[in-house]
């Protein structure tokens, strides 16, 4: 495990857990089609933390939802693949993008192989059932456990996430717990069946500063113990620096830069990434939302032609950036960027591979 965590260069295909290829998830609305995710490609490796960063509305959550096929009735994966490798010893992947979103196959993956925690611990639990009831539901469903056994395991998991007196807390209703404890309980629910991938969609945004640090520390600890991979979505580059080994930077439904974490901070290439860097809201400064760059994110129904960042880009090249869309350019082994400043890239379909 340690080898995988540190030496990204040596990662081979056996340790690959999830492979997202040219994923496009669109929403049909009355106002038109929202291309929320518009051709993203990235990998997640076993035991690794992938950070996903970008301004509000750039498609981070929709990417995560697509992986679990909870993109909703109006959402549709129009193109691309999500290959999930359940077996660490090799074997055929499951293409999640092609599954029926209500079907048995995806349900067997949800909560068991891939779990998700959300920003709002308050509303993510249903208020009329005890947290124990909701945690045990997963265990009974996926591990075919009896109620009593499931209860024991739920207590164990609650203890694991640092909830004091878990045998009593298990019978509490969500509104009786503090925000921090509730998010811990949420993590317990997500990890109760030992998933291989934990998706955390802004898990600390709604919490107090001191609690934020505790929750992040807890996630790191649990990762060391259980070895799951984490896809961590955040607005905060500070959080990324602390938690992730690899980072993807998203803008308007695309990945503009993809790099190993130190490489990204030492050597940011994309003008958008650089802009984000200049206003890193430090963990605890209270400014969690990124509002760094001149101008605002364009209307999602009218994404600009060419490079979608060009109306806001300080280095935009006239006649090129507003006409053609840049494709990923590999700068080094662990770093690729989609910007004409670094050449024209290879793949014409915009689905350049980054590995």
């Amino acid at each position, binding site marked *: 495990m340690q080898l995988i965590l540190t030496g990204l260069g040596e990662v081979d295909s056996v340790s690959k857990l999830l492979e997202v290829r040219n994923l496009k998830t669109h929403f049909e609305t009355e106002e038109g089609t929202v291309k929320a995710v518009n051709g993203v490609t990235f990998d997640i490796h076993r035991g690794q933390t992938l950070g996903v960063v970008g301004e509000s509305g750039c498609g981070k959550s929709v990417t995560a939802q697509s992986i*679990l096929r*909870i993109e909703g009735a109006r959402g549709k994966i129009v193109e691309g693949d999500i290959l999930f490798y359940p077996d660490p010893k090799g074997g055929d992947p499951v293409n999640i993008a092609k599954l029926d979103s*209500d079907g048995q196959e995806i*349900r*067997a*993956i*949800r*909560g*068991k192989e891939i*779990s*998700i925690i*959300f920003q*709002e611990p308050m*509303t*993510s*639990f*249903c*208020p*009329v*059932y005890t947290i124990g009831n*909701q945690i045990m*539901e*997963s265990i009974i*469903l*996926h591990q075919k456990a009896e109620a009593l056994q499931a209860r024991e395991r739920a207590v164990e998991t609650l203890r694991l996430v640092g909830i004091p007196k878990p045998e009593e807390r298990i019978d509490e*209703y969500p*509104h*009786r717990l503090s925000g921090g404890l509730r998010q811990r309980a949420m993590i317990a*629910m997500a990890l109760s069946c030992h998933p291989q991938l934990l998706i955390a969609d802004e898990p600390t945004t709604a919490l107090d500063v001191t609690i934020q640090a505790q929750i992040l520390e807890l996630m790191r600890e649990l990762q060391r113990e259980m070895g799951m991979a984490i896809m961590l979505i955040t607005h905060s580059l500070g959080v990324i620096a602390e938690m992730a080994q690899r980072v993807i930077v998203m803008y308007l439904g695309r990945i503009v830069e993809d790099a190993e974490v130190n490489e990204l901070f030492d050597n940011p290439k994309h003008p958008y990434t650089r802009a984000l860097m200049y206003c890193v809201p430090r963990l605890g400064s209270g400014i969690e939302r990124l509002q760094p760059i001149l101008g605002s994110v364009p209307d999602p129904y009218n994404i600009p032609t060419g490079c979608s960042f060009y109306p806001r880009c300080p280095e935009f090249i006239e006649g090129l950036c507003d006409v053609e869309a840049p494709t990923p350019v590999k700068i080094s082994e662990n770093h690729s960027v989609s910007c004409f400043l670094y050449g024209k890239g290879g793949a014409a379909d915009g689905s350049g591979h980054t590995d």
Partner: protein
Amino acid sequence: MTGYVLRRCLLMIPTVFLISIISFAIMQLPPGDFLTNYMIQLEASGQEVDQAMIEALRMRYGLDRPIYVQYFVWIKSFLRGDFGFSFEWNRPVNQLIWERLALTVAVTAATMLFSWVVAFLIGVYSATHPYSVGDYMATFVGFIGLATPNFMLALVLMWVAYSYFGQSVGGLFSAEFIDAPWSWAKVWDMLKHLWIPVIVIGTSGTAGLIRTLRANLLDELNKPYVVTAVAKGVPKMRVLFKYPVRLALIPFISTVGWSLPGLISGETITSVVLSLPTTGPLLLRALQSQDMYLAGSFIMLLSILTVIGTLISDILLAVTDPRIRFD
């Protein structure tokens, strides 16, 4: 939970006490005491007034004593099941009241069951298929149901039942059963008649319930906990009924208690049109003819039923929504 139920039960005592005072006050509203009125009536119709009987009644109801004593005499005998005397019917009130009350409860219960089942099915369908053809149809039918006056619906259904099914309409029983003692045949006969009043009384309420349930459920379906449950791998239908439906029912349940008096007053008009032997028409007539023991007893009993209905809905609510129990 037990503590909550106990508290709610204790709260009923002052409520019922207040109701008894109001009922008693209503009985005192007509000028003069009712014995005097009764004597005047008898004399006007040229009948002999039996002074001994009048005296006995006067003693029994304490009519020559102060008003609060009269109240206690009345409430004491009420609690023992002696509801007084109906001068219009010339019979003790409790001989008149029980069967009608039972039939009222039967019609009301059947109506609520009907509204709930229909509203539940249509409401859940509409909310899970919003803006579909079925949803629009349910909305349309619902508004028609809401907008049609009950008596009109009653007349239309009576006409349909009579001309297409050849059923004798009006009333809850066929002619041969009206005065017959209770038997399975009589119950069956009643069930055959029950559907018209149930539909008539239930329709407007059902339409309202459908709208409420649909709106609640649409709200709940967008809550993050639904996504959480789906993301755990719980099948869609199980998620729907375990989580959002249960929450959507909360405001629904809290209206059950209040809907009881509404049903009874809605029932009155319909019952007059359909000539149902329930309490509504009898109460109306008792009030018109100032038959005050009868009227007072009805008001008292119906109010107590409403209080019990509210209690039941509060308990159901506490069972459904644990947050209430802690307040």
